């Protein structure tokens, strides 16, 4: 009648059936955890390679500008979220009004690793879908030490009708490289999270690029039709719902 605990692993990604060394974890399970935490910590402190990302975005045909928030370094960024939502003055001066339909802001957020890995392949799926519904996305603005709401300031400077912020999500132990996307209609400083729509966990093992791009194209179409984003704009497609925010 004795059944091994390990069968529980079939039902969940949680760390079940780890075994015991006394009351502690066995060595392998203990070090698995430490390794996952190490990956997450390194992702939080990773620096975005702006030049490499800019070259990838340019290859997709996007005009690219690089800016920074008023948080001068990662420590300040972590303890002063207000500075991460505000544009550095010199950076703001580089943004000129072009009244785009959908500005793209690529923000390092809490995982430059996610942004470096997933931005270009995701946009390679998303840009053609947006073009098919008549939306020429861009320009792309790469922003470092940036929070989601920095997209409001950037979108306002550009005179954008809407802004999509692609940002590195807070790393979990199961994935240090989840990319999030926040869509905001009529961006301007002071917008709240309730006025945005989110696509979370964009990565091949989470929300795959093509599926996330389908969701984005649907949301952008509805946003332009109804001229709003946020809680009033729910994903009402018959199959598949928006994932829960991480």
């Amino acid at each position, binding site marked *: 009648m004795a059944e091994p605990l390990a069968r529980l692993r079939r039902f969940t990604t949680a760390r079940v059936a780890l075994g015991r060394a006394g009351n502690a974890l066995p060595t392998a399970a203990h070090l698995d955890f430490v390794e996952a935490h190490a990956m997450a910590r390194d992702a939080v402190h990773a620096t975005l390679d702006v030049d490499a990302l800019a070259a990838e975005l340019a290859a997709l045909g996007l005009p690219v500008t690089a800016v920074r928030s008023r948080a001068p370094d990662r420590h300040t960024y*972590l*303890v002063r979220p207000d500075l991460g939502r505000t544009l550095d003055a010199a950076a703001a001066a580089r943004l000129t009004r072009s009244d785009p339909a959908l500005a793209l802001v690529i923000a390092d957020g809490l995982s430059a690793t996610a942004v470096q890995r997933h931005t270009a392949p995701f946009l390679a799926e998303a840009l053609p879908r947006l073009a098919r519904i008549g939306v020429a996305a861009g320009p792309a603005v790469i922003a470092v030490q940036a929070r989601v709401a920095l997209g409001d300031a950037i979108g306002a400077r550009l005179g954008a009708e809407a802004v999509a912020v692609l940002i590195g999500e807070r*790393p979990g132990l199961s994935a240090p490289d989840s990319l999030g996307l926040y869509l905001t209609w009529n961006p301007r400083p002071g917008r709240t999270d309730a006025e945005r729509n989110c696509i979370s966990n964009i990565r091949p093992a989470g929300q795959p690029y093509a599926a996330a791009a389908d969701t984005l194209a649907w949301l952008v179409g509805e946003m332009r039709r109804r001229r709003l984003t946020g809680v009033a704009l729910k994903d009402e497609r018959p199959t598949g719902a928006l994932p829960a925010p991480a």
Partner: protein
Amino acid sequence: MAYAHTVGGTRYVFPDLRTLLARASPFRSGDALAGVAAASAAERIAAQRALADLPLRRFLDEAVIPYEIDDVTRLILDAHDASAFAPVAHLTVGQFRDWLLSDAASSEALAALRPGLTPEMVAAVSKIMRIADLIAVAAKCRVVTRFRNTIGLPGTLSVRLQPNDPADDPRGVAASTLDGLLLGAGDAVIGVNPATDNVETTIRLLDLLDMVRDRYAIPTQTCVLAHVTTTLAAIARGAPVDLVFQSIGGTEAVNRSFGVSLALLAEARTAALALKRGTLGDNVMYFETGQGSALSADAHHGVDQQTLEARAYAVARAFQPLLVNSVVGFIGPEYLYDGKQIIRAGLEDHLCGKLLGLPMGVDVCYTNHAEADQDDMDALLTLLGVAGVTYVMGVPGADDVMLNYQSTSFHDALAVRAALGKSPAPEFAAWLERMGIGTEATFPPTLSPALIGLG
């Protein structure tokens, strides 16, 4: 009214009580973010000395948030019991600290004092305490609550089994629950945070947890930690609700940002009591709190985050909860930056909750952007165990795959129970023995996975 103290030839003036409390708070990033922290170590000790000289009575005359604009202030002052307060009414905050640490402050004396204490009084005294003091006084506090078992008896340490699943998959929740039961967790509650807060998901998870509890005949309670309005809707549809959960804070405005009011919490408690599902007692509420929530909601009124946290406990105690826990490291480094700040905050929250009479647990936890790791959690968990914490969390492998943060594991709870000679709640301990749950790497026949749909 202004307060002042001179340190090193400099006279520091604090224009009002909320400023004095904020400047006296041991440093944490959230108070700096709010712009209320002391600007120097000298200013902080000046504030602490001025606070130590302050009569406790002063807190009954000067509210940190005006009575007229905040229903939590009204709750605190209207519910204050002057006769319970009488034994300490003549003391200053500093003298109150000395009294709390003395033998005169017995478990019985501390219990009798509770209705006479306000959150601001307990926050104030905690600010002039070291960690050793926070532990010594908390360890004397006895708070016992009951639903289907008895939580908080001396010598016990309970565990909330937290079997979260990123997709609310019932089989994933069931598998994590079974894993936790086999490691002795679940006497505080088996409580799931739903990934999606809607009534259908909530009912599905409530049905699952009730089925698991029933099939294994576990003397415990279950909970789906959905918004109170979702739980009310589930009750209206006949779902098996043991406990009503809600996140709460220390100001009317932060509670509004959570979508709750005191009246709504009262309505929910009445609805849960009417189900009469508790067999040993009628503590039907479960609250979570955490320093920084009010600032995060821009609802802090210039009050420091630790004082606001203590005010949340005044909200909690009005509803006789079974369980209350601070989720101390969850909110992130802009509020509690590192292991040092998280450890102190966890012990402050535990003491303040216990002094006010709450069955206080702590979610010993951190996020990956905080300067903390498992060593910090081991330290806080052990310190809380010595302080007599009512319960802690049990998460498979300490890794919550839905909320993406690290809490304490089933193993951690076993280890601290063993190190400190603590047992689970007595009814649950007897169940573990009856079921033959031990240290073997197999399921006892009584706990077959097939019984709960994991065939």
